């Protein structure tokens, strides 16, 4: 990656976009001018309309003149409503003066055809005519989705209720009883809803929507638009790797998305403030002053991951399109697909836990909601959301890079866009492209998380079964599916999964690392305790697992905890992922990316550092040797040690370790020996294995 060049591309694209009238209109003019106007106008129109309806005559339908007379007689004594201070409302006009009566047998259809506002049926009359004893049951026929009908029914009901209350008072008076006697309880509710929780309900989805809409135009313009205008071809014959072009364009889209989103939010906020709309938005109880102000920093920060994710997704999708029009067609379903998890997450009562932690888009929605409403969050929750979001965004950018400038997108008709995925059209090559491998790993992440969660749910604490099924499913997702994918894309299985033999020196390295890695892991864990102590609850959760490690047969534990994960994780991470990076990046990048992905698949923040470092060792081993097997050995030994430690505490004690405590430093001699072994292992493998000659071309489909 050449940062200067990415910067050049970034600034050029930014200037180019900002000089475009359409960008300016879509991202600046619309939010700044149009939104407030529309919002003010529609809100005012609504209130004008409501006011107008309130002034209209109320049309009430009754089945007979007799019922009409009864109602008129009752309504004649309608008391004037009182306000909160007990003062009569002087503007109030009695209902009787506003009603227009309609007598019809079929009240139901009269309401439904909007001929009358509401219908009133008087049934069950007792002691009619005696003010102190008469009783009526009224049935109101109303169509609540019609404002006229609803208002008519409300007016009639509230008038009748007030008359009823009046009657109660009269009757109590006649019995010489005080009104208080029949009201044993009084209620007063204090609403603690804060502006945050109110905002939290609408803001997260609003953010998704806003960043999406702001990113759409630049995403299309910089990909399909560029192709349509004939400039993409020129760009592609420049000596710049596709990854850098995409990176520059991606940053541009993110910038415009952020800019647009901020303007949108600012504009909405200003409209709410200055337009005096807080009341209408139902926030009347809060002092308007604390409405969005306190939330602004959180919202602004949260915008960034949203903008990153949506821009990445849009760029990837638009990369498939060959024209503006086509891109627009692709985008509608994508917006829906993006909003869907967001809406699912936004359902009331959803919590940022379990599967929700890694639900793309949904997890961000929940995080922002909780931050705004002041819900207490754990560090690991925030980390999980941010890390998985970065992973998804990375996957999408990788896909975009993969598609960028591809021949089938650049020069083809409709027939061959389908051929992009049609196996017959795929050119065989040795290694998968970085985009393909990263995309698979990014997609596998939530899937594997859901599989794990589902297993935990299904067996509910029965760790034996959880482990058994994990061991069965792991090969499916980490080896068989990747192998199928490799087959489909005509990639060579053996070099990609690094299944070839390793030279003896690498085996020796693997052995040494196998002997020493657990010490490194242990020390990392202990040091981490100082910074990031493991919560008690989590330790409790681990208890069944530890018990199981002591009680199950050794061979079984070694199989499910050590053999299976060692083999299949090496295939997936050190095999497919690392080898796809081998062709396109330097060694240190390959190692870092692989180790990071490997660490994230362990799902626990507390294991991130540990698994990351072990992942680095294993990746180094495979990069140097071009074979996963030494790594499998080291991985197996490392996991196997955990089993042995649990099963034979005595052995551990013999080396000088207190088996009861996980959180103490190991004796210095153990650390020194381990350090020597690690250094020796790295030194022995310092010379990388040459690429074996292959009968096909060595290039990758870049």
């Amino acid at each position: 990656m050449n940062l200067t060049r990415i910067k050049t591309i970034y600034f050029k694209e930014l200037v180019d976009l900002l000089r475009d009238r359409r960008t300016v209109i879509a991202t600046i003019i619309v939010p700044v001018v149009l939104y407030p106007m529309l919002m003010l106008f529609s809100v005012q129109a609504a209130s004008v309309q409501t006011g107008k309806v309130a002034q209209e005559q109320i049309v009430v339908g009754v089945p007979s003149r007799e019922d009409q007379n009864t109602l008129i007689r009752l309504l004649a004594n309608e008391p004037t409503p009182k306000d909160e201070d007990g003062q009569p409302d002087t503007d109030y006009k009695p209902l009787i003066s506003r009603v227009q009566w309609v007598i019809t047998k079929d009240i139901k259809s009269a309401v439904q055809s909007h001929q009358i506002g509401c219908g009133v049926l008087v049934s069950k009359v007792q002691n009619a005519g005696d003010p102190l004893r008469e009783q009526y049951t009224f049935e109101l026929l109303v169509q609540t989705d019609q404002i006229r009908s609803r208002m008519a029914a409300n007016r009639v009901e509230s008038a009748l209720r007030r008359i009823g209350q009046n009657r109660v008072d009269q009757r109590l008076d006649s019995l010489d009883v005080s009104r208080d006697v029949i009201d044993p309880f009084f209620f007063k509710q204090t609403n603690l809803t804060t502006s945050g929780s109110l905002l939290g309900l609408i803001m997260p989805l609003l953010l998704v929507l806003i960043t999406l809409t702001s990113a759409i135009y630049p995403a299309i313009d910089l990909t399909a638009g560029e192709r349509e205008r004939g400039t993409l071809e020129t760009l592609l014959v420049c000596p710049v790797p596709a990854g850098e072009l995409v990176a520059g364009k991606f940053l541009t889209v993110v910038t415009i998305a952020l800019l647009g989103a901020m303007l949108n939010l600012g504009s909405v906020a200003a409209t709410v403030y200055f337009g005096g709309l807080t009341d209408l938005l139902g926030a009347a109880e809060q002092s308007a002053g604390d409405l969005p102000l306190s939330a602004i920093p959180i919202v602004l920060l949260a915008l960034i991951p949203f903008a990153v994710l949506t821009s990445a997704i849009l760029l990837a999708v638009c990369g498939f399109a060959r024209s503006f029009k086509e891109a627009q067609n692709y985008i509608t379903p994508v917006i829906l697909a993006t909003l869907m998890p967001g809406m699912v997450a936004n359902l009331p009562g959803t919590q940022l836990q379990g599967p929700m932690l890694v639900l793309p888009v949904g997890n961000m929605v929940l995080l922002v909601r909780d931050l705004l409403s002041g819900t207490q969050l754990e560090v690991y929750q925030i980390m999980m959301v941010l890390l998985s979001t970065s992973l998804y965004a990375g996957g999408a950018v990788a896909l975009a890079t993969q598609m960028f400038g591809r021949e089938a997108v650049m020069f083809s008709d409709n027939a061959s866009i389908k051929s992009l995925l049609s196996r017959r059209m795929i050119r065989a090559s040795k290694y998968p492209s970085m985009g393909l491998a990263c995309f698979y790993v990014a997609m596998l992440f939530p899937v594997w998380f859901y599989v794990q969660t589902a297993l935990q749910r299904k067996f509910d604490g029965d760790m034996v079964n959880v482990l058994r099924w994990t061991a069965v499913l792991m090969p499916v997702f980490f080896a068989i599916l990747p192998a199928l994918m490799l087959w489909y894309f005509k990639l060579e299985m053996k070099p990609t999964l690094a299944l070839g033999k390793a030279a003896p020196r690498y085996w020796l390295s693997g052995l040494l690392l196998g002997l020493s890695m657990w010490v490194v892991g242990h020390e990392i864990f202990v040091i981490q305790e100082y910074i990031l102590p493991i919560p008690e609850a989590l330790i409790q959760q681990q208890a069944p697992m530890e018990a199981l490690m002591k009680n199950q047969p050794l061979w079984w534990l070694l199989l499910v905890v050590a053999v299976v994960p060692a083999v299949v994780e090496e295939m997936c991470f050190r095999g497919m992922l690392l080898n796809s990076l081998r062709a396109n990046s330097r060694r240190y990048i390959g190692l870092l990316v692989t180790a990071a992905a490997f660490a994230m698949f362990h799902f626990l923040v507390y294991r991130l550092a540990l698994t990351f470092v072990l992942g680095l060792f294993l990746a180094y081993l495979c990069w140097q040797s071009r074979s996963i097997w030494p790594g499998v050995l080291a991985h197996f030994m490392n996991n196997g040690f955990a089993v042995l430690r649990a099963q034979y505490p005595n052995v551990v004690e013999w080396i000088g370790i207190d088996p009861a405590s996980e959180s103490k430093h190991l004796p210095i001699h153990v650390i020194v020996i381990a350090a020597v072994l690690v250094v020796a292992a790295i030194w022995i493998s310092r010379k990388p294995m040459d690429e074996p000659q292959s009968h096909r071309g060595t290039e990758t489909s870049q």
Partner: protein
Amino acid sequence: MPMIHSENLAKSFPTPDGSQKLAVAGLSFAVEPGQIYGLLGPNGAGKTTTLRMLCGLVVPTSGRAVIAGYDVQQQPLAVKQVLGFLTANTGLYQRLSVRDVLVYFGKLHGMTTPQAKDRAAALIDTFDMADFATLRCGSLSTGQKQRCNIARALVADPPALILDEPTLGLDVLSNRVMLNFVRDQRDAGKSIILSTHYLDEAETLCDRIGLIHQGRLIAEGSFPQLQEQSGEHRLSDIFLKLIHEEPVHIV
């Protein structure tokens, strides 16, 4: 060692009915420094596809191309560094000025900003573009655009030029500018490969001519050689004759 060189270059495209269409069927040719190689052929002969394969825009189904010693598939970036590419429908960034475009492409070819600016100024001078150098490309005439495009292709002063119908749609004047430019570049020792449908242009301009038909090279040589081979005087007659007699004249 030729500057541009291809071996059995072939490309097939999928067709909607599921079969394969062989657009280029094994082309081998070489272009030396200081030479203009004309790739001629009827519509759909496979010229554009061939030139795109030379630039690395299209991946060949088989065969390979080498430019300045770099394999197009193996070292695409090195190849792109030594390559100037120009077609009739190459677009320019509508909202950037001529100068901005030149500076941008200079930087993409690895120049620093001052270097790119100097280079842009020199090119603006060479191609007499000072009058419109600060105008946005969207407002230029076809001829002005073409000049800007030529300058763009020359930003990194590449030793190899690939031109796909560079004179398409130009008037006499702009056409002259273009042809002079091509000659100047040849005289400066560049290797140029160009496709065109203007045969009289090719007669006078090209040092070597390759006639392709249905993806195959059916004749190759200098204009006099082709005249001799076919017994015809005008290139257009040679062209028609060879195409109709094909495959008798396969070289």
